[in-house]
């Protein structure tokens, strides 16, 4: 019924005309016309027919009309920039409707619905995950609810200030100091007025001169003292608050889901942690106090000059809005110039980073001249942008100065006339000029404050966006903490895709007994790593369930479960630190005896002790000073010490020589003992000892059985084995 309501009237009428009374089970709007241009069309499952209708003015054109009974399967073919929903109709694949990537997720669900119905299953109702703002429809970032269009700047500011609550006493102090400081700032022109009117013009009252100069001195000394005090407090506050925010941010980053990391390159997240939180700090420590003091100054000055001579005051303030407007436009121009400059600077930086990081490759291919040319192109780019930006700055800045000066010209002229006609004193004029000098600076600043604040608040918002992103532990409140994990793993009809409409693993079912070793076999891209990812619960299955000891992984406490999970990956990764620290990574309080025992089991002890610093040997950023085989064994040692119930081995023996492989194999054999092990290997010989082999083809289980069984079966595994034998013969002969 809801599906029916969404339909535009022409489509609804066409449907009513063709199939009166047919109930609409599924209705989905696409954004592409039949000819590939952007336009609206509808895919309907109405009654027992699948229809494609295009609204065409007041009427609707039915472009496809397929009886559901003839459809045996529905699939999505990924194209470039979009995709095509296809149906197998009477054994033939037919294009039904195309859509752009924007609707990939939506049509992924539609595919699942149509496919289920075509196969005689009940109509599923997959959850429609909102990724657009419910208020304004703007597309939101992955796993966030913050809509930048709807979020009120005030709300962000309030949230930011909420971080100041623990420091409210210091905050009050700053506010007080600001008020006092402003008052001291307002004093000097007024004192000058007295000086002129009472001493200088009448050339009398010399006894007042000393006192007035003293007052000026006191005002400026105390004013400076208060400013210094205030600056020191705000610096502390700003630093402290952004410290708190950065801490919260990093903690959140550690707990974000893998999906979030898939969508956000590490660089973006690093810039949120460094640049955006830096922006927030600037805003809090410098921008916000500056804004408040400037506002106070403007209010104070306005009051003062109105009190001195309100007619002159009104005249003097006439150009203020105009000056604000013009400076704003000029600043805008300058901002653009600098934006372009920073953008080019970023690209320049990337290039240099790239080239110097790959110096070996460049030298090996003797491409220094090419690199120099590439560099020069970027450098020239940078040159023109920087010249433009600096020239704009050099032009705009003096012009702004000129505009600011224009207010005082008015005061000189009209104030001068007023003095001549005895409507004002000379002191009034001097005080006015003093006050105007104080007010145009802040006015100029406030003209940009909107843009400047919006930038700072956007940075804050980007930080909050990460803080609001979905945490993996929140995804399912898995609270079952098992006493121990035996390691029985079962996949039940599991379907999963990184993109919803593109399943990588399709309806996989298998079971691994506790302590058994299961080999995952198949060409690259068939879903081996995806199965491991699901097992680690980096992702949740879209359909079906993954069970560990009979408990759905979603219900298991993630923390407790991962604590019993270990992995030795293809790319052995070592953290900066000592070898001992690296082995003890999963068990930070392990004794050195435990570490050495683990290393010994991993066949690593002997080479570690032979290092100059033994277990205290520093391994660099990527464990640079260890060979691939050594790193691998350190990683195996790490897994042994971690003592997992479920172990993942991902191509652990790739890229090492035969002798090292032997050592690693031995270490692995000891490691897998008594643990449920999932092993991925391209070298099928390494999986000979597996209790069972799961042969995958195109995301589905092709074969399941022991090495011997599958060899005798002469199926997919056999042909892989055959291919493997041939290639290893070639290798042996060539090598």
């Amino acid at each position, binding site marked *: 019924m809801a599906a029916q309501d969404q339909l535009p009237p022409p489509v609804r009428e066409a449907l009513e005309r063709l199939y009166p009374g047919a109930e609409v089970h599924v209705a989905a709007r696409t954004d592409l016309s039949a000819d590939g241009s952007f336009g609206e069309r509808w895919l309907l499952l109405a009654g027992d027919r699948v229809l494609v209708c295009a609204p065409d003015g007041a009427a609707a054109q039915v472009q496809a009309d397929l009886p559901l009974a003839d459809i045996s399967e529905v699939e999505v073919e990924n194209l470039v*920039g979009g995709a095509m929903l296809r149906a197998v109709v009477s054994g033939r694949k037919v294009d039904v409707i195309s859509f752009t990537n924007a609707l990939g997720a939506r049509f992924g669900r539609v595919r699942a619905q149509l496919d289920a119905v075509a196969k005689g299953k009940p109509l599923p109702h997959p959850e429609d995950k909102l990724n657009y703002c419910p208020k304004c429809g703007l*597309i939101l970032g992955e796993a966030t609810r913050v809509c*930048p269009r709807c979020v009120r700047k005030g709300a962000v500011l309030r949230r930011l200030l909420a971080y100041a609550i623990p420091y409210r006493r210091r905050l009050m102090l700053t506010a007080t100091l600001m008020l006092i400081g402003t008052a001291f700032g307002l004093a000097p022109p007024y004192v000058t007025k007295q000086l002129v009117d009472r001493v200088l013009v009448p050339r009398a009252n010399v006894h007042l001169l000393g006192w007035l100069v003293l007052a000026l001195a006191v005002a400026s000394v105390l004013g400076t003292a208060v400013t210094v005090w205030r600056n020191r407090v705000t610096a502390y506050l700003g630093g402290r608050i952004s410290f708190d925010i950065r801490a919260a941010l990093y903690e959140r980053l550690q707990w974000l889901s893998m999906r979030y990391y898939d969508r956000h390159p590490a660089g973006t997240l690093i810039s949120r942690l460094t640049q955006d939180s830096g922006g927030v700090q600037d805003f809090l420590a410098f921008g916000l106090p500056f804004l408040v003091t400037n506002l106070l100054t403007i209010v104070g000055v306005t009051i003062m000059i109105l009190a001195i001579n309100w007619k002159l005051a009104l005249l003097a303030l006439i150009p203020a809005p105009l000056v604000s407007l013009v400076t704003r436009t000029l600043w805008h121009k300058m901002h*653009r110039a600098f934006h372009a400059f920073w953008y080019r600077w970023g690209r320049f930086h990337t290039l240099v980073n790239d080239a110097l990081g790959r110096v070996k490759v460049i030298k090996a291919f003797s491409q220094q001249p090419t690199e120099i040319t590439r560099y020069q192109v970027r450098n020239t780019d940078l040159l023109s942008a920087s010249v433009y930006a600096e020239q704009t700055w050099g032009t705009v800045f003096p012009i702004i100065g000129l505009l600011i000066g224009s207010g005082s010209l008015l005061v000189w002229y009209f104030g001068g006339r007023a003095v001549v006609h005895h409507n004002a004193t000379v002191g009034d004029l001097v005080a006015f000029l003093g006050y105007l000098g104080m007010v145009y600076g802040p006015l100029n600043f406030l003209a940009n404050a909107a843009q400047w604040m919006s930038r700072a608040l956007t940075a804050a918002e980007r930080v909050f966006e990460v803080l609001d992103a979905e945490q993996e532990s929140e995804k399912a409140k898995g609270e079952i903490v098992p006493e121990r994990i035996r390691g029985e793993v079962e996949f039940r009809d599991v379907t999963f895709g990184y993109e919803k409409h593109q399943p990588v693993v399709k309806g996989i079912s298998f079971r691994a007994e506790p302590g058994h070793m299961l080999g995952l076999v198949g060409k690259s891209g068939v879903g081996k790593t995806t199965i491991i990812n699901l097992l680690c619960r980096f992702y949740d299955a879209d359909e079906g369930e993954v069970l560990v000891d009979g408990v759905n992984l979603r219900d298991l406490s993630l923390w407790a479960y991962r604590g019993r999970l270990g992995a030795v990956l293809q790319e052995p990764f070592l953290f900066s630190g000592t070898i001992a620290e690296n082995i003890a990574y999963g068990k930070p309080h392990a004794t050195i005896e435990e570490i050495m025992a683990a290393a010994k089991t991993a066949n690593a002890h002997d080479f570690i002790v032979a290092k100059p610093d033994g277990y205290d040997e520093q391994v660099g950023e990527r464990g640079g000073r260890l060979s691939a085989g050594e790193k691998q064994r350190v990683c195996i040692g790490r897994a042994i010490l971690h003592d997992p119930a479920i172990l993942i081995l991902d191509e652990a023996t790739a890229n090492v020589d035969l002798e090292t492989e032997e050592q690693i194999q031995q270490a692995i054999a000891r490691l897998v003992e008594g643990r449920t092990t999932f092993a991925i290997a391209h070298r099928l010989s390494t999986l000979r000892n597996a209790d069972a082999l799961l042969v995958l083809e195109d995301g589905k289980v092709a074969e399941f059985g022991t090495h011997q069984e599958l060899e005798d079966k002469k199926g997919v595994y056999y042909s892989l084995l055959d291919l493997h034998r041939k290639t290893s013969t070639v290798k042996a002969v060539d090598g």
Partner: protein
Amino acid sequence: MADDRARQATGPPGLRYLDAGQVKVFRNEDGSLCATIADELTVLSPRFLRACPLTDPDRCISIRGPEPNGKEFGLLRNWHRLDPKSRRLVEAELDRRYLHPTVKAIVSLKDYSGVQVCVFDTDRGPREVTLRDTRDNVIYLGPARVLITDAEGNRYDIPNLHALDRKSRSLLALIL
């Protein structure tokens, strides 16, 4: 001997270039697409993939089997010179596969704190587009060529920045 077989099985890698005259594309009785290559073999439900879809889209068309990682039967050069019937079929297949909107003008661009909502006028009609993280999603393919990826993963090509009108260029300056 086993060695010889193995060598044959892997074989030396070689590309097979096909001229327009060697390829015929047609639909058989049940309407499915077929391609005959050099009168040697007929590929059922072939796929036509551009080798360099962005930089030189018409230079080489790879003719492949229907499955996702299907075998390549040859690289077709000068596909425009196919016989008219074949050419139309290949053209339709390429149009079907490559949704590659080209931006003719930028009608509007509004910035909401790092998220931009723009209206592009493209060769496939006007389109409202949401951009986010433009630093990562706007890439230069040449000195004046820009490829923009929107928040939903759709891509928009601006073949020549200098060919855009003034207004479009000044709006674009906000994200370039």
